[in-house]
Structure formats: C-alpha cells, structure tokens
C-alpha cells in the first residue's frame, strides 16, 4: 500500500470516527469525573474559561440536531488538530534537517 493511499484511508477512518462514530459516544461521566462525584470533590471544578466557545463540550453552536452538531464539532476538531500538528511538523523538519541536501525537505508532508 502506498503512503498516499495509507494516509487517505487513515484520514477517512479518523473523520468517520470524529464525525459519525462520535454519535454513539457514552454521555456518562468518565472515570475521573465519576471518582470526583463519588468522593465529593467534583464541586471544586471551576467554570471553564472557554465554556462560551462555539464548540464547547463538542457541540457546534447553532446546529439543532445533536448528532450533526457533535459530528461537525468533531470534524472541525480533526481539521484544527491536523493544521496545528502539520504546521509544527513542517517547522521542525525545516529547522532540523540541515544534513542531507535533498533540496525538497518538506514535499513528502503533503500527501
């Protein structure tokens, strides 16, 4: 399997996970939240500084349908994470690749 094909499939799986599989995510408290509730330190949590973010709690603001809203938030999150990580990797490769003068140090990134 070519690297390009692999990347396309991996991205498709990732987008499906964030956009569709996330519909079926459990809405129960996670392990830490459960322990905090049971042992009584959940109330020490403060209101989140970004709680008025249009994507707060993995809900896209203004989208009525809960599944669509969550799926959209997930896809946006994947895109933003990809852009941030991609940018970081690009900078790291440009700076950290003084050795082999192959002339095109960043071209394999755009697959």
């Amino acid at each position, binding site marked *: *399997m070519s*690297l390009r094909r*692999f*990347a396309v499939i*991996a*991205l498709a*799986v*990732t*987008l499906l*996970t*964030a956009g569709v*599989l*996330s519909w*079926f*995510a*459990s*809405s*129960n*408290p*996670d*392990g*830490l939240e*459960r*322990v*905090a509730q*049971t*042992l*009584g*330190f959940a109330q*020490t*949590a*403060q*209101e*989140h*500084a*970004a*709680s008025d*973010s249009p*994507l*707060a*709690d*993995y809900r896209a603001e203004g989208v009525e349908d809960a599944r669509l809203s969550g799926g959209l938030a*997930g896809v*946006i*999150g*994947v895109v*933003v*994470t*990809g852009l*941030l*990580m*991609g940018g*970081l*990797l690009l900078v*790291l*490769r440009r700076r*950290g690749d003084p050795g082999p003068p192959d002339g095109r140090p960043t071209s*394999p*990134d755009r*697959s």
Partner: protein
Amino acid sequence: MHVPDGFLDVPTSVATAVVAAAGVAAALRGARRELDERTTPIAGLVAVFVFAGQMITFPVGAGTSGHLLGGTLAAVLAGPWLATLALAVVLIVQAFLFADGGITALGTNVVLMGLVAVWTGWITFRAARSILRRSSRAVTVAAAVGAFVSVPATAAAFVALFAVGGQAQIPIGTVLTAMLSWHAVIGVGEALITALVVGSVVAVRPDLVAGARGVLAGPTLELREGVSAGEGATT
C-alpha cells in the same frame, strides 16, 4: 481523564506547567532527530486520530465511561517524542476550542496524558516487546500491554498530584483505590483500541510503525531472502 480548572491548587498547577513545558521542549529536540519522510506523515495522522479517538467515550459499567488516552498508540506508531507533541497539540485544541480540560490545568493534562501515559506506555511496550518473539503479532500484543498499563499509571499520577495540591480534603488512599479500580477497567478498552489500530497498521505498512523498527524485517529484506532461497534451489 481531563483535569478541569480548580481540582488542583495554583502552586501545583504552576509546577505541572513547568514540567509540561520542559517535557515538550525535550520532545521538540527529540522529534527533530526522528522526523523523516515516513515519521512525519504518521505523526500528523496520529495526532488527528488521537483527537477523534478521545471523543469516543465507551461505557465501562455503573453509569461510568472511559475514553482512549492514546499515549501508547501514538508512541508505538510515531515514537515517544512525536507522541508527546501530538498529545500536547490535541490537549491544546481540546482546552481552548472544546472546553475539555481546564486552561490553568493544561500543564497538568500535558504531564498526565502527554508525558506519563506516553512514556509509561512506551517503556512497558518496549519491555513486553523484548520478552516476546520477534513477530508482527508481538508488536501488537506488546502495544496492548503498554496501553493497558498506561491508563492506571496515569490515574496514579493524577492521585499523586491530588495528594500534593488537591483542593478537597479526602483520604488519599480512598482516591487512589477509586481511581485505580475505574481506570484498570478503562485500560482494557485502551488496550483493545490500541491493539486494533496498531495491528491494522502493522498488517499493511509495518515499516511505518516506529515500535516495530528493528524488530520486523522490512518487505525488501523478506524479498531478498526469498530470492536467495530460490537461487539456492536452482543451483
């Protein structure tokens, strides 16, 4: 597992932020050496997959859920330095865009998921891999073992921070027992997802798996062995 603002006091949060910054700085140096035309795309894919995977909270019984931490998954696929960077990026996006994990607790969450989960998972993976036979299945099994161990290890690290700077007076043994018992169960889910993903990548492109390097022969090497065996048969 995302710690919200307020669980830990300010000195503890500042201390974890310093440790997180030092860890990320070390990862930036380490990652620079590891980056090549194979690890770079894998590191990007790992970051987006961990973000997506962390959205999938799965039920673990009694009205409680867990989700992938992804530290071991990222370390086995991309190497531990790039894994630390990937987790840090995911946690930053979650804290600022999705209000998941406090902003003053960002350092704490990077320490827990970007350092403790990644490195305990990676070290356990390496130990398990050295015990097992050299095969693609061994890489997957070792990744599952590392993933399983990383979750209670991360939970224990949270309890240690809570013992130092927790904002509520609760016997620490009680917190430790509760955290470890839930996260041992969540660790099983972590192990299953990690095995599924690592096993899939090992099956199609073993050369892309950082944790399989030096263990599995690449396809070129296998082909040469086949050729030489054929030549041996004809002469």
